[in-house]
């Protein structure tokens, strides 16, 4: 058990615990509690990204997810000012039960297939040796502005459309300011 493995296990357990707290009541019943649980998952995943030498992506995970997305969620939860009776939990219909059962079966099946197929990846010694700047701004930025230039520019257009769309959708219909 190396130090990296210990850190991996701690972060893996906290990220899964946070995800479960979002999905399962009693924590997830109140959206604000779910948002805090989601924050735990996001920050744990940022730690795992550092373990994977994805430094730029880890920083972005904290900025975009733990920062911007979380502020957006908490802002909307507080803006909506839900009453007690609106804090609904589940409604399990037959179709949903089928969907959940299928998803669990699929996950187990994929897990079995992965453990078989991933045996080639089980030895960390087979991993590529990477330079110290792997995952830094320079390395990722070079890929984004050369190989992935078109998707990168399309992303900026997508964000613009999302901003305009969000403003239009959330605007009051009676002509008042949003």
């Amino acid at each position, binding site marked *: 058990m*190396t*130090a*990296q*493995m210990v850190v*991996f296990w701690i972060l*893996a357990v906290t*990220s*899964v615990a946070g*995800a*479960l707290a*979002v*999905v399962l009541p009693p924590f*997830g019943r109140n*959206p604000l509690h*779910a948002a805090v649980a*989601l924050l735990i*998952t996001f920050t744990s*995943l940022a730690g795992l990204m550092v373990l*994977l030498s*994805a430094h*730029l*992506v880890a920083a*972005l*995970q904290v900025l*975009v*997810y733990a920062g*911007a*997305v979380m502020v957006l969620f908490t802002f909307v939860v507080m803006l*909506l000012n839900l009453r007690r009776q*609106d*804090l*609904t939990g589940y409604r399990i219909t037959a179709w949903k039960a089928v969907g959940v059962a299928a*998803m*669990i079966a699929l*996950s187990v099946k994929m897990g079995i297939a*992965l453990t078989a197929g*991933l045996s080639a*990846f*089980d*030895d*960390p010694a*087979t*991993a*590529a040796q990477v330079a110290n700047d*792997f*995952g830094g701004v320079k390395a*990722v930025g070079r*890929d*984004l502005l050369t*190989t*992935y230039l078109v*998707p*990168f520019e399309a*992303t900026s257009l*997508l964000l613009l459309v*999302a901003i305009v769309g*969000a403003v239009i*959708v*959330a605007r009051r*219909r009676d002509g008042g300011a949003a």
Partner: protein
Amino acid sequence: MMDVPVSWYVILALILFGIGTVGVLTRRNLLVVLMSLEIMLNGVNLALLAFARHHGDAQGQAAVFIVMAVAAAEVAVGLALAIALFRHDGSVDLDRATRMKG
């Protein structure tokens, strides 16, 4: 150095994706459904990064960058829809949101 096997990361990614899917399928509150979607996307990102690290190729990280941008746009529009739904129906309960028009 990489001490943790890639398979561990991929299994963790699968667990997160599964938890997120169960949340999307079973929860009624639109806000919690959106949060579950974020968990699913984060699981996918983790798998991408694990393989990017294994192959020593930063292109996987570029893909994660774009997934993050799409997820941020999705949250912005999704929460705007939640506000519009709340103004219209007085709740964000997906089982009560049965009418698309009017």
